[in-house]
Every structure is written in C-alpha cells, then in structure tokens.
C-alpha cells in the first residue's frame, strides 16, 4: 500500500511538472559594485520570498534564470547596506546594484537577505543548517556547535579527540552519515571526524533529519551531516592558532593560490590538534592503604594525549570550457591517541593506545551543460589507504594515581599481548547527474560505490586469526525536484537502491561476533524511497512534511569492530526505518531590524533491525547489535531572534521517546521490555545561546562579539527503567553547561582574537555512564584572514 501511494504521488508530481514546463524563463543579470565603483565579489543576490539566489563573481557580475514575473531582488554583502529593487522580468534584464558602506541604518525600507543556511531550513527537508563563518573566530570544535542544535545530541567520552556518538532525532550516531561537500567524509580516513576537521575551511553545515537527499548517495537511517567548505575565488590565507586548558593546541592553515595565467588553483589545508587532556577527574576511586578503602579523590588524567593532523592539497582549475571544476586532491591524516579508560572510568589504562593514519588521492570533475544543455555532471573517484593499530602490550594494572603493578595480562582485553593491525583500503566512486529542465523542475541521478576492505592481523597475539573481509556497497539514488506557484510550493521525490556485498573471512571470537553464521560471500538488495514537500502560505507560516523509507547498511566498524573496545558482529543486518517529519515554520518581522524565526517539528521513526551499541558491561567492551524494532517519536522546537547585525538569540528544546518494539524474547516468551523506553540515551534536552556584536569598537571596521551558550540534558537511566528499585538504578546525571566567549576582530575580520570558557561553573558532566568529561576550560584563539 505504501508503495502504491508513493507511485501515485510520484505521478501526480510528474503531471504537475509537465504542466509547468510551459512556463517561460527570463534571465536577470547585472553587476554589484560599491559606492566607490569597485566590484563587490561574493555579494548575495536573493529573490525575496523564494529560494532563488546567487552570488556575484570576482567582477561583481551575477546572472540568474527565473520564471517570468515580478520580483523583489535583494543584494547584500557584509559591511554594506543591503539594497532591494522591484523588477518586472521578461526575457533578459540587467539590473545593477551600488552598495553603500553600512554607516546608517535604513529607516524607510528594511531589507532581509536570507543566508544559505536559512534557505536550507526553509526547504522541504527537515534540516538544521549552521553557519560556521560567523563563529569560526572562536570555534575550537565542530561538535560543540552541532551539539547545540535541536534534535542533535553529541555524546563524548572525554576531552579533545575522544570518541563520540552523534545522534539525530534519537537515531544512533552510526546511523548518521558524514559528508564533506557531498562526498563521504570517510575518504579522508576513518579517524577524520567533526572533532578534528579544521574549522576554518567550513562555510556551513547541513544536518538532514531522517530524510536524506538522494544526491548525497547515502544509506543513512537517521540523517546525514554534510559539511560544506568555503568556495572563494580569490587568493587568500587563513591561519589560526589556539591554545587552551589541559595543554591543548590547535592550528589551522587554509589558503588558496590562483595562478592567473594558467588558471590553476592550489588549495593547501593543514589542521593540527594536540591535547594532553590532563583534566582533573573528580571523585575517582583511589586506594588508601591506611584505611583499607577506596577513597573518592581528584586526580588528573595521565594517559590521554591526543594528536591529529590533516594535511591536504587540492590542485585544479575552474571555469574552463572542458570543466567547470577539475581538482585532484591528495591528503594525509594521522591520529595518535592514548587510551585512559575502558568504557567506564574505573578501568584505568596507562599504556594502551590507538594510532591511525590514512592517505587519500581523489579526483573530481564537474561540468555544466555536459552532453546536453541543463545537464550537470559531477563525478569523483577516490582511493584511501586507511590503517590503524591498537597497542595493548603492557602487562600492567594502573590506578588513578598513575601507579601500576606488573600484571599477568594486558590492559584492554585481559588476554595476551596484542598489537592489532587494521588495514581498511577504501575505494569510492561517486557520479552525480543533475538535469534542470527549467528553474522549477530538475531530476538528479546519483551513484555511489564504496568498497572497504578490512585486513586484520596481530603482530604478537598468536591466538589471533588474520582475516581480510570486504564490504562493498552500491547506492543509486534518483530524485525529482519541483518548485511550483512561484516557489510557494516545493516538492521532492526520490528512490534509492542499496546493494550490499559482504565477504566475511574472520572467524575468531565467533560466538561473540557471529562470524560462523555469516561466512563467505553474500549480496543483499534493498529499496528505499521518499518524498518531501514545503508549502509557504505567507512568510510567517509555512508547512513542510517529508517521508523516507530508509535503509542503512552496517558500517565496517559495526560489522567488524574497532580492534580495541568494540567487538565485531558479522551477523548484523541492515537496519530499516520509515521516517516521517512534519514541521511548521515561519519568519516574522515585528519591527525595524527585528527578525524572529520559529520552527516546530514533529517526527516519527519506525525502525526495524535497529543497530544499537550495546555495552557488554561485564567485558568493558561494546558491540553493535540488531534490536528487532524501535519506534521513536519526538518533538522539537527552535526560536531564533536577531536584531540588526548586533544581536542573535537562539533557544531550542527536543524531546524524543524511543520505545522497544520487541514483543518476544529469544525463547519465544513475551519480553518485559516491550514498549519500554530504550535506556541509555538522552530523551529531553535543550540549548540556548545569545550573541551580541558591537561594531567599530575603538577602531573603525572592528567588532567585538560577546557570546554565551547553555546546554541542558535531562538525566536518564543506564538500563531499562521499569525494573529494579529506582534507588538502585544507575543513572547518567543531568547536565547544565554554560559556555561564554568574547571575540575582537579588526579590519573587517582580517585579525581576530577570541577567548572562550567552556563549562564556566565547572560542573561535573557525563555524556556516558561513568565517563567524566572535562570541567572548566579556557581557549584562546588568534586568527588571521588575508585576501
């Protein structure tokens, strides 16, 4: 029935599309200059009340295809007063804009240009979009920023570089896929993540909830995060260095060099993170022989050094007759990570560590009007040598004093010494074909193949059986997008085909990993489909709804483990979900300079074979397992308010309720957990932030930005809440974290200095059971942006 309904809707849409083909197109072009006559590059040109828009090029010129009609066109650029013109558009029309430097606020006319992020929020999909540019001067970690958005929760195990679990609308972190400019982030290496990506390269982040556009070529079940990097056309150099508490250092370098004669562009990027993470653990147990008891004490972490490096160079050309973009990229990433604890802090390590490195070579090619007018082809081929090593060779038992006794077994697994090597070569090819019939109608075909090997061997553990497993997946997505009624309605329909090919050769720990059940080669084929719609009645009120039947193929990490704290589970099935989003949003301008945006979303996730990380409490290990079914419903709301360019406020709250749908136990009897809330996950949380920017403080073209944020998570149980006396049950306590910062910028952002303080009130914070996060910390960052 669901399939028939979808087909029916699809045909309706196609019908609407053919009707709309008859509409005529017009071209709006022109130039945007400053009052002194210089071209303004990268100025935003938006068509008010629609999602149409573009940017000016280096010469200040712009060009935009639109259906014929009357529009209000708004040109804006930072540091200038925005300008708005009413244009009746037929055929070709040129409209120039002269922007004045912003010295006096407009009194009679208020102009509101929407950022790319805002436009995304107002699209058909349920999406959070975060502008990184405004906060890049003070930001040290993307996870921090993402964690403050509605419906998203990042659970970190410790300090800088610690493992984390990101969930969107209650879906496990690993059902969320990560992309960088539409390409899976894993091409950079398995250790590259939101936690160590250089923030300076990022323009904005898109977070898709439940329904993921087909062009991302994703098998995400709970959503996707797409990191969109800055696209400048000029030479620039962006450098920053930050120093913080717990011996933390971060340095980023990002530049672009354009060779005018050849048109060759070189973009080097380097990001380095280092931290000793020697923050104080409060109330950890330390043995006091005089009283023969473990006494709660404060001790510094002593084996948690983290180092990451990402170095990348892109070389290519843009705007050539044969290619709009052609780039070859080489990157190297490295992560060295000491391990301080097991999955709870009572297990202290002093020698174990995990190291990883990856080399990547990729090439991408993009061409508009490829083969036929209106067709854009964008393809990417990538190969990654991904390598990791888990070192667990010390026969020692450590305590929080940093002392140890010589032991008779290793630290992590309690077995014999282990030097476990993982080689995970990844080949990826993505090809995206986008055909735009006219500004209202477009189809998109995306194909992604991802082949990941898992070659494992151990240098010293004679009991370890080497293996070489292969996971290969093909994902094809076809989508059709339409904009109707002068953009008051937007619809998207898509289908996806997922093919998973496994070749499992490992057999060790078969009783734990299930490798005896899934041996040899197997191929599975799965279909997904979905649709999204947005109807804008008027600016303060719009509705959107989206649906996807999604499939997520297990990750290599879930299937094959991580060699240290996660067991393999080769018998994992893909998880499937029917995801529904329904939202209402709108923008209101209550007075001059005031903008209020609100959004309320309800969602439901009907998950089957849900892949969930289960702590094997007894072993200090984790394993991903299929939970037969979980249903999640939730509600989240966000309000944003801004006043001119000075004040931005945001507050959100999210509630999500995941209920176990497994009716029967393994022995066929009714399960006590049926319809119980799934434990060990945050279910009520919120965030708020306030930023105020003073302009021209002490010096012209300077700014002083004050910011503060607050995060709250309601406490939750580690295990099923209904069973056992409440007072005996383990809990993850509530979190109240307040952060604050101040940033001073000179010469329109060329020189920036920021100081921030996280967890100002030094609260004890846990995201995971008995895994303490850092207390109060400070971070000082200096950034130079030269162009």
């Amino acid at each position, binding site marked *: 029935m669901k399939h028939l309904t979808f087909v029916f809707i699809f045909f309706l849409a196609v019908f609407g599309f053919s009707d709309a083909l008859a509409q005529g197109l017009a071209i709006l072009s022109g130039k945007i200059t400053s009052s002194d006559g210089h071209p303004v590059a990268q100025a935003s040109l938006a068509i008010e009340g629609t999602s149409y828009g573009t940017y000016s090029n280096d010469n200040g010129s712009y060009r935009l295809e639109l259906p014929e009609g009357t529009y209000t066109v708004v040109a804006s650029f930072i540091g200038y007063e925005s300008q708005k013109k009413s244009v009746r558009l037929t055929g070709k029309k040129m409209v120039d804009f002269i922007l004045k430097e912003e010295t006096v606020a407009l009194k009679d006319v208020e102009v509101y240009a929407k950022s790319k992020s805002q436009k995304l929020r107002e699209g058909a999909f349920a999406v959070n979009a975060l502008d990184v540019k405004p906060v890049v001067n003070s930001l040290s970690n993307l996870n921090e920023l993402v964690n403050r958005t509605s419906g998203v929760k990042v659970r970190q195990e410790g300090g800088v570089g610690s493992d984390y679990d990101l969930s969107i609308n209650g879906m496990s972190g690993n059902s969320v896929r990560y992309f960088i400019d539409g390409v899976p982030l894993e091409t950079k290496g398995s250790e590259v993540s939101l936690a160590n990506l250089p923030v300076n390269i990022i323009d904005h982040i898109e977070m898709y909830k439940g329904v993921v556009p087909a062009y991302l070529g994703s098998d995400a079940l709970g959503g996707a995060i797409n990191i969109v990097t800055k696209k400048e056309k000029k030479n620039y150099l962006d450098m920053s260095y930050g120093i913080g508490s717990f011996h933390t250092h971060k340095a980023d370098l990002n530049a672009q060099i354009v060779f005018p004669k050849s048109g060759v562009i070189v973009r080097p990027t380097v990001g380095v993170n280092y931290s000793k993470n020697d923050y104080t653990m409060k109330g950890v147990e330390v043995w006091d022989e005089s009283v*023969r008891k473990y006494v709660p004490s404060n001790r510094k972490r002593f084996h948690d050094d983290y180092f990451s490096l990402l170095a990348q160079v892109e070389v290519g050309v843009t705007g050539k007759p044969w290619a709009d973009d052609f780039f070859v990229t080489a990157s190297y990433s490295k992560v060295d990570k000491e391990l301080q604890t097991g999955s709870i802090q009572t297990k202290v390590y002093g020698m174990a560590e995990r190291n990883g490195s990856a080399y990547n070579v990729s090439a991408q090619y993009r061409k508009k009007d490829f083969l036929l007018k209106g067709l854009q082809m964008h393809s990417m081929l990538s190969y990654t040598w991904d390598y990791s090593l888990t070192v667990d060779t010390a026969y020692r038992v450590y305590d929080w004093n940093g002392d140890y006794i010589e032991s008779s077994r290793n630290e992590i697994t309690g077995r*014999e010494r282990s030097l476990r090597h993982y080689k995970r070569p990844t080949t990826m090819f993505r090809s995206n074909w986008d055909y735009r019939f006219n500004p209202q109608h477009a189809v998109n075909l995306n194909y992604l193949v991802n082949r990941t090997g898992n070659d494992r061997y151990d240098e010293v553990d004679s009991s370890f*059986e080497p293996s070489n497993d292969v996971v290969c997946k093909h994902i094809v997505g076809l989508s059709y997008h339409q904009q109707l009624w002068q953009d008051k309605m937007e619809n998207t329909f898509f289908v996806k085909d997922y093919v998973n090919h496994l070749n499992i050769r490992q057999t060790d720990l078969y009783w734990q990993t299930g490798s005896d059940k899934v041996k040899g080669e197997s191929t599975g084929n799965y279909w997904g489909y979905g649709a999204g719609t947005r109807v804008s009645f008027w600016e303060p009120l719009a509705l959107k709804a989206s649906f996807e039947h999604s499939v997520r193929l297990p990750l290599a990490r879930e299937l094959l483990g991580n060699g240290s704290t996660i067991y393999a589970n080769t018998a994992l099935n893909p998880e499937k979900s029917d995801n529904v989003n329904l939202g209402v949003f709108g923008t209101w301008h209550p007075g001059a300079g005031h903008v209020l945006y609100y959004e309320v979303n309800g969602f439901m996730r009907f998950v089957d074979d849900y892949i969930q990380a289960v*702590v094997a*409490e007894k072993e200090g290990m984790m394993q991903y397992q299929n939970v037969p079914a979980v249903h999640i419903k939730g509600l989240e709301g966000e309000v944003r308010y801004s006043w001119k360019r000075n004040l931005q406020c945001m507050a959100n709250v999210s509630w999500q309720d995941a209920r176990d749908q497994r009716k029967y*136990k393994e022995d066929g009897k009714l399960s*006590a957990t049926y319809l119980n809330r799934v434990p060990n996950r945050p279910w009520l949380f919120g965030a708020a932030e306030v930023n105020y920017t003073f302009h021209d403080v002490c010096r012209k073209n300077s700014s002083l930005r004050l910011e503060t944020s607050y995060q709250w998570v309601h406490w939750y149980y580690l*295990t099923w809440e209904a069973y056992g006396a409440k007072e005996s049950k383990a809990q993850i306590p509530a979190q109240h974290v307040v952060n604050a910062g101040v940033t001073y910028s000179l010469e329109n952002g060329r020189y920036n200095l920021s100081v921030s303080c996280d967890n100002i009130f030094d609260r004890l914070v846990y995201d995971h059971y008995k895994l303490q996060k850092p207390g109060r910390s400070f971070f000082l960052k200096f950034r130079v942006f030269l162009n």
Partner: protein
Amino acid sequence: MKKMKVPFMSFLKTSVFATALFSFVACSNDTPNGGSGEPDLTGKVHFDIFMSVGEHGGMGGGENTIVKSVESLTADQPMIDIQGSGVELNPYTIELISKGKYYYQVPSKQTRFTKFQIVNNKIEIVQEQPFVVNSYTERKYTHAWLDDKTLLVMAANGDADKIIWTKLNAEDMSILSEGTLNLPLPAGAAVFTTTGILTYNEKVGKLFYFYYGKDKAGRKGVATSNFLTAVINPSDMKVESNKVNALAAEMAGSSYGQLLQECVTYDEEGNLYLAAFTKKGELEEGCLLRINKGESDFYASYNGYPNADGKLCTVQYLGNGKALTYARNQSADAGRNTYSLYYSIVDLKTGKRSRLACDGKEVGYSSGRFSQRSVVLNGKAYIGVNTETSTCIYIYDVATGVTEKGADIAQGYYFDALRVVEN
C-alpha cells in the same frame, strides 16, 4: 554456678547453630549441603533470585540483572516480580562467589576483589582489596573455600601458560599469600584452558584442580588430552599429584569455574563428584565421575549419569545418596535459548535417575543453559524452571521424594540464578 551455666549453654547452642549455618551457607561452594539432619534454617536465610531483563545475564551477556530477595519460595507467596523492585546488580555480574551474608567478586572493569552484600534494596560494599601481584579479570577465575575465612582464587595468566593463585582473608579481604602453581603445561600444550575447576575436599584436606591444555591459544585451540586432575596441598600450594583422566574429555564448565554453575559436589563420606562430558560425534555426552575419598584420580568404573542424552550442566548433592542434576537433551536443543534442559533426581549409587515430576507429570524442558536455578535447603531442593508454559519454583522433598509447586515468577525476564543468603 547457675549464672555460669546459662551463658555456657547459650554459647554452646550458638556454636552449634553457627556451625550448622556455615555448613549450609556453603551451598554454592565445595562442601556438602542440604542433606537431612540439618537444623531448620527457616527465618535465618532468604533467597536471592537473579533475573535479567532483555537478555540472559550469563556468559557475559546483558547488563541488566536485577536481584530480588524473598523470604520464601512456597506456593502461597505472591508472584515474584522485579518491576519497580529488586536491586540492579551492575556493575557486578551473576558469576559470583557467595558465602554467609556476602558475595565476592572480581567486578567487571575493576582491578580488585570486592566483598559486598545486598540489603534494603541496595548493594553495600563491605570491603575491597586491589590486586597486589596477581591480577584477574571478571568471570575468568575459579575459587575454593579452604575454611570459612579463607578464599582461594585461581586462574590462568594472560599468556595462559601459568596458573596463578591468591589466598584472601574473607573477613577483611586482605591478601594472605599469592603465587604461581608449579604446574607444567600438559604435554604438547601451548596454553592452559582459561580457568579450570578448583574445589576443596575438606574431608581429605586437599585441593583438586581440574584443567586441560590446548595446542594453541584462542577458540581454535584443541585440547591435547582428556582433562587432568591436579591434587594440591592447600597449605603450601604444592602439586602433589597430576594425572590425565581416562574417562571423559572435559569438565562440564571450564570457562568460569563454579562462579555460576555447580559442577562439583560431595557426599557425606567425602567422595567428590564432577560433571563432565565427552564429545561423541555431534553429541556432547555427559557423565558424572567420582573420586573416592582419599584418592587422587577418578574411580574407573563409576559413572553416576550413564546413557546421557546431552551435556550434564550442574550437579548438587541432596543427601541420602541422591543428587539433583540439570542436563541437556541435545536432540531437543536448537540453540542457547531453546527448551531442552531438564532436572533429574539421581541415585548416586546405582546411577538410576528420574526426571523431576510434579503431580505425576514430568516437568517440561527449560531454557537457560547458563543458569543455576536450584538450591538445597532444609532437606528440600528449590528448583527454578523456565518452561515454555511457566516460570516458577518446584520444591522437592529429599526425604519423601515428593515434589510440589512453589512460587510463580513473572514472565518476561530471564531467570538466571537462585541463591540462598544468610539474613
């Protein structure tokens, strides 16, 4: 004179009672228990029922075990449920050493020995002791009580090429002594099995350690011989005898000693009985072997559980020459959670056995291979079952041989263990 007599008599009575109580409390340990002639302990003890939510608590699965303490398991009791009651066992696991009021364990993710008790809906840590020389990991050790105050813990080391041991004073948990057993690897073996089975025969004052070797580490390692029996002098931990047995391939449990399941028991005379098995084709054929008091090897012509239809999982002495066994009918078994396990009353002299029956009907097969749901107390065996149709207790009277139904246990959980604990 009169005044002097009262305290003396009181002391005498207390001593007799204490002696009886200690002998009973060792029910999950290495001494005979529950036989006839013991004093009535009603009101002096309670039952701890271990139930896991979501998945079995045994063999490292599940972290959501709830312990419910009840005074009685008779049929007149209300249904036993853990909804909103009972104690969450985390971070401890169902693989425990119990004696008297207390539980003992090497807890998961901790590098220590812990002594705790469960009272008033919470776990109270009584005493802890960090490792000093030898270190152990959760579940992977075996134990024996040398006396009421001395707990001996033993395991293979990380390389599994040596057997390490630690003696603890169970009162204050201080380490009395530690060392490495002078036990060589069996011929052709590269490693010992993880823990083996350790037991103390107090009638002869010797430790018996059952173990075997494997040709290589890991699950692919193959036993190099039938299991061996080492007889150890508990005072100096010297190995006095070390023999390969000729009767069976492996002990019933080799992974975590008797921390959960009891596979060693003794009769009144001090004869030792061990549940063991030999793989014959696909069949794991169980057997019950005996080491006669004073001997160091198994009595060659004895098998207390002949013609087994599967593995013998647990054995507990009932008194009067009878034992309670929990075994698997392999032909009815299709995995860890199928209903294929059953209780029998075994005559240890003749080897004759009968399925546990109530009102003339055999009690159905249970599921739960890694469970220990029976205890012996006051001449009765309290036997927990998890059949396809019910989860409840049966009470077997050793003297009369009559079985009656006891308390019902709520469905929806995994009923993993039943233990008797001193109040």
